[in-house]
């Protein structure tokens, strides 16, 4: 218990003192997970829209598969990407193992199914009454797609935020791919794991609080952008 209180105090001290090491790993966490969310959204949002707006054989199976992949274990993604990027693996020549770029690739792969599946759900959620209204108003197909997308934008933003949340909170892939190298690939979650294994419990709690604070800021900023 004492460690949790101590953790809060330490978190405030770290934030106020602008501890350079903590700032560095916080910035790296943001850089890695925001990049991964960006790349994943580039793929997942159009893909989700495509799946929703088109009828094709096996559509139900594709959606089931996507929803199953929500449960993709981070360590398995990390291990698969590790075997690809290792010097003895097929993409070893890229030299991306133990780099922030490798971590971005792994997190991107991790959250693509989540954002894609939730985009499909977001579009389905507003569909029924909307489509009738739109059709009764005599809109063209393109117009109705645009209207539906616009109506679903809050739910789509929620999908992106959930993807970001999964990325910045996970420790499995970044530990395997990044290697938790100080000053190079250490991020908040791997620093928390390390400090827990070193017995610095209150420092771990402090880093956890900072991680939540960062997530809060990202959520608020994205919501503000959305509302404009």
């Amino acid at each position, binding site marked *: 218990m004492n460690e949790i209180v101590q953790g809060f105090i330490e978190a405030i001290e770290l934030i106020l003192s602008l501890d350079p090491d903590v700032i560095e790993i916080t910035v790296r966490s943001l850089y890695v997970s925001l990049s991964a969310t960006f*790349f994943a959204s580039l793929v997942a949002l159009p893909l989700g829209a495509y799946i929703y707006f088109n009828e094709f054989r096996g559509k139900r199976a594709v959606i089931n598969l996507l929803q199953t992949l929500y449960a993709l274990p981070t360590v398995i993604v990390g291990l698969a990407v590790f075997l690809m990027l290792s010097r003895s693996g097929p993409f070893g020549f890229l*030299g991306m193992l133990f780099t922030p770029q490798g971590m971005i690739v792994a997190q991107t792969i991790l959250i693509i199914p989540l954002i894609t599946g939730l985009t499909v759900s977001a579009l389905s959620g507003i569909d029924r009454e909307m489509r009738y209204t739109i059709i009764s108003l005599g809109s063209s197909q393109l117009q109705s797609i645009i209207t539906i997308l*616009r109506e679903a934008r809050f739910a789509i933003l929620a999908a992106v935020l959930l993807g970001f949340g999964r990325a910045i909170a996970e420790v499995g892939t970044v530990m395997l791919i990044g290697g938790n190298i100080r000053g190079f690939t250490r991020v908040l979650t791997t620093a928390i794991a390390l400090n827990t294994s070193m017995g610095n419990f209150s420092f771990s709690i402090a880093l956890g609080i900072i991680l939540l604070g960062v997530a809060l800021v990202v959520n608020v900023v994205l919501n503000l952008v959305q509302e404009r």
Partner: protein
Amino acid sequence: MSSGTKLLTLSLAAILALGICLAGCTGTETPDGQAIPNETATETAAPPSGGAVLRIATTTSLYDTGLLDMIEDTYEAETGVDLLISSQGTGKAIELATRCDVDILLVHSPSQEQAFMDAGYGVNHRCIAYNFFQIVGPEADPAGIAGMDPVEGFRVLYEKGTAGEPGVLFVSRGDNSGTHSKEKTLWDMAGYDYETEVQGSGEWYIEAGKGMGETLVLASEKDAYTLTDEGTFLAFQTDLVLTPIIDQGDALLNRYSIIAVNPEQCPSVNIEEANNFIDWIISDEGKGLIGSFGVEDYGKALFTPLYPPECTASPFNCTCAESVSKA
């Protein structure tokens, strides 16, 4: 209408971006791979292969003491070589070295080191320092093993544990770490086959499958005995109700070694810098740093550096001073 056209442009842009991404998603990230370390890393960043970068795989129990952070700072300041140190458990560290993903291995598991060398994966094996494992447990010492020889202590733990004597519990790392492999050796020396007689022999034997710190916390919560390295125990001591029960005896010796990855197996290895680093760490300067580490925080040194002729004799039986680049 205007918001409609805005959305249309947006979705067109998204589709365009998808096209670009499908065409070259990994391709566009790869050039970044070389460019971005320059901005994010504070130290001199160099291309992943070649240049003054040295990748070191090590074990958590060694890294968690903080020794390697200090060595990294000193060595980088002196030579400008960028040390990338990753700590991931002995099994993983050795696996990284056999896959050519690192240049140097820093471990404390003589039997696994020997297997690594015998398989031709490593060159220039040097032992650098040692300390002692400890058998820690509840202060009341329900098995009554305090002051015993470690092997004798393990025998008594086994006998009382399997007999169901109350309060006699043992928590094992159970993760193939260097500490776990030392534990197996101790069971073996006590006359018990690990897989058939110790594992699954009853509720007294708990396999944690965790790192050293978490294993200590588990042992403390359960009032159980466990085998630990001294550094991790000192770091956790304030959070534990455990005390050292047996901390003497050659069988508890914990030897740390450094090995360069064999460039004939792995052409990508930066063998020149690896050899320079090994020479530095076995120099009087490197060993002086190791020998003084921990005095400030714990009031005692965590590691004893190895010097000849001590290291060549039993129980060490290793090379600790010959320069590797001149060999």
